[in-house]
């Protein structure tokens, strides 16, 4: 693996609420290599979005973030807000889930893409407009010269998400963080967007973090996958390895819940519910729902162990087959 572009160590995020602290992310460490596509998978509320938003300080002020996040020679978590502002959108760009509402209705899309260019790269209005047309072309919007002058309400959801991606790519960022970029879209449009992301990685060499709850999406495009559960990393592996030899019972459960055409067996759900993040147990968070749980799981937090090259799992009883 080449030198890590982003290296996160012991990232923890707490939210101070009236009912006490909520631990959204607990000591998460990971790295992202150049040109890598990293999939981050987990249920709603497992901390996958929060951990990446915390890196750019996009969370509300009630969030308490600790840990280190080395990006180049800078610790993102210790950087000044002014410094971060020059990184946001310039070096690390975000694409959010809601394409329908993420564009300002008062301006044309060209104007909005151009704004990012003018701010970060100091382009003139005319150059920014010309570059916006190129970007719309890059994200495969037909008739970009005309679309660039249109308002968001004139575009469909898929096109708006393409505009959002164009805006994120405007300054040629090193990392593109896409938070559920396809969740709000039709399946056919979804495939188009994923195809586009793959193309972007090939052509621009942008490292991509794909946050999703859809294992199918990850299998399609990611190089490496992190599975998160209740704010902790449960398993991390190269994508083929994860699908061929899942180790963590949670991962196995997730894969069992993916529908496969032709299979006659019933979809397996994971029993129980996601634990409340208010009181993270000093134990394996998955233990209450886990068929393999024993006294050890219920009394200690499992540390990550490398079971295969590049394949780490936080479980006392890892293994590919359910007992």
């Amino acid at each position: 693996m080449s030198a890590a572009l982003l290296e996160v160590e012991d990232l923890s995020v707490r939210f101070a609420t009236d009912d006490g602290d909520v631990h959204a992310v607990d000591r998460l460490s990971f790295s992202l290599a150049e040109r890598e596509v990293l999939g981050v998978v987990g249920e709603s509320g497992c901390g996958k979005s929060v951990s990446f938003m915390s890196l750019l300080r996009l969370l509300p002020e009630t969030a308490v973030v600790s840990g280190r996040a080395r990006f180049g020679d800078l610790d993102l978590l210790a950087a000044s807000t002014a410094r971060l502002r020059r990184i946001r959108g310039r070096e690390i760009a975000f694409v959010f889930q809601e394409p329908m509402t993420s564009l300002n209705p008062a301006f044309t899309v060209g104007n909005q893409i151009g704004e990012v260019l003018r701010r970060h790269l100091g382009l003139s209005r005319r150059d920014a407009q010309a570059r916006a047309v190129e970007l719309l072309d890059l994200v495969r919007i037909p008739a970009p010269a005309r679309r660039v002058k249109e308002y968001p309400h004139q575009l469909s959801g898929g096109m708006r998400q393409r505009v959002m991606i164009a805006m994120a790519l405007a300054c040629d960022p090193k990392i593109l963080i896409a938070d559920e970029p396809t969740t709000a879209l039709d399946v056919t449009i979804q495939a188009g967007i994923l195809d586009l992301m793959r193309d972007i990685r090939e052509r621009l060499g942008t490292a991509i973090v794909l946050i999703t709850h859809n294992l199918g999406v990850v299998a399609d495009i990611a190089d490496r996958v992190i599975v998160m559960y209740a704010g902790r990393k449960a398993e991390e592996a190269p994508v083929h390895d994860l699908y061929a030899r899942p180790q963590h019972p949670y991962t196995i459960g997730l894969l069992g819940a993916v529908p496969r055409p032709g299979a006659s067996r019933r979809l397996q759900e994971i029993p129980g519910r996601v634990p409340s993040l208010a009181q993270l147990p000093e134990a394996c968070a998955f233990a209450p729902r886990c068929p393999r749980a024993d006294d050890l799981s219920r009394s200690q937090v499992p540390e990550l162990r490398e079971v295969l090259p590049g394949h780490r799992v936080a479980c006392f009883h890892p293994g590919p087959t359910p007992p």
Partner: protein
Amino acid sequence: MSFVEVSPVVTPRARRRKILRRRFLRRPLAVAGLAVALAFVVAAIFAPWVAPYSSSATDFDHVLSHSSGKHLLGTDELGRDVLSRIVWGARASIEAGVLSTLLAMAFAVPIGLVAGFFRGWADTVIARLTDVLLAFPFLITAVGLSAIFGPSLTNATLALGIAAAPALIRIARGEALALREEDYVRAAVANGAGDLRIIARHVLPNMTSTLIVQATVLIPTAIIGEAVLSFLGLGVQPPTPSWGVMLSDAQSYLTQAPRLAVYPGLAIFLCSLSFNLLGDGLRDILDPRTTR
């Protein structure tokens, strides 16, 4: 995917304008409001050319006369032409109405916007203060303030502007509170925009339609307010004509020439009604839920 081809000369902005114009024209009351309001504004601006006589020219041969070819709306107790005085009076009304609204906007919008956008203790203080000020009726505040400032049109305008501000602060704050939570604001932050840029590009432009509607509602209120203040002797001072002053003067001749009170009263009524109808129409067409 297929696209409906649009002729390239029609830019989206022009098309949107066309849609808005069509929606507006489909509302006869709004069109009438616009026409009458415009007529008053034109009369006010071009008073020296529109009015048949000077507002202070006396014609002692025709004192308290009825309508005639020479004096369309008759004359008052000093033989001054009533129509001319109404035209000249429109100046005071429009000036007070428009300027006080602009004044209120000029300081209420920034205050409300900053309070709603940045929140914090300053917001709490501003919000509670406006609540306190809103407990006083608009006209009471305006009368009280102009009593302090002293009688003149400028002071009356100032008083009306200040009295109108709390309601506007609340509206601007409410809008800012809602807009700061928009996804596009979040996206702008993630793209590296600072607070000032977010306010200038994402918050303010998206509250302008609300503010425009609010302004058209505020103008008639201020016009009535000006009439009230002038009637009470706190606004325009005689002999300068104002509808409020005319009403006040008419009191002494109410039994002999009630028309002296009717005409300026009608002017106030028509002028504020027209701005209100215009405001209603604007609110309807600028509301994104309107489809017609």
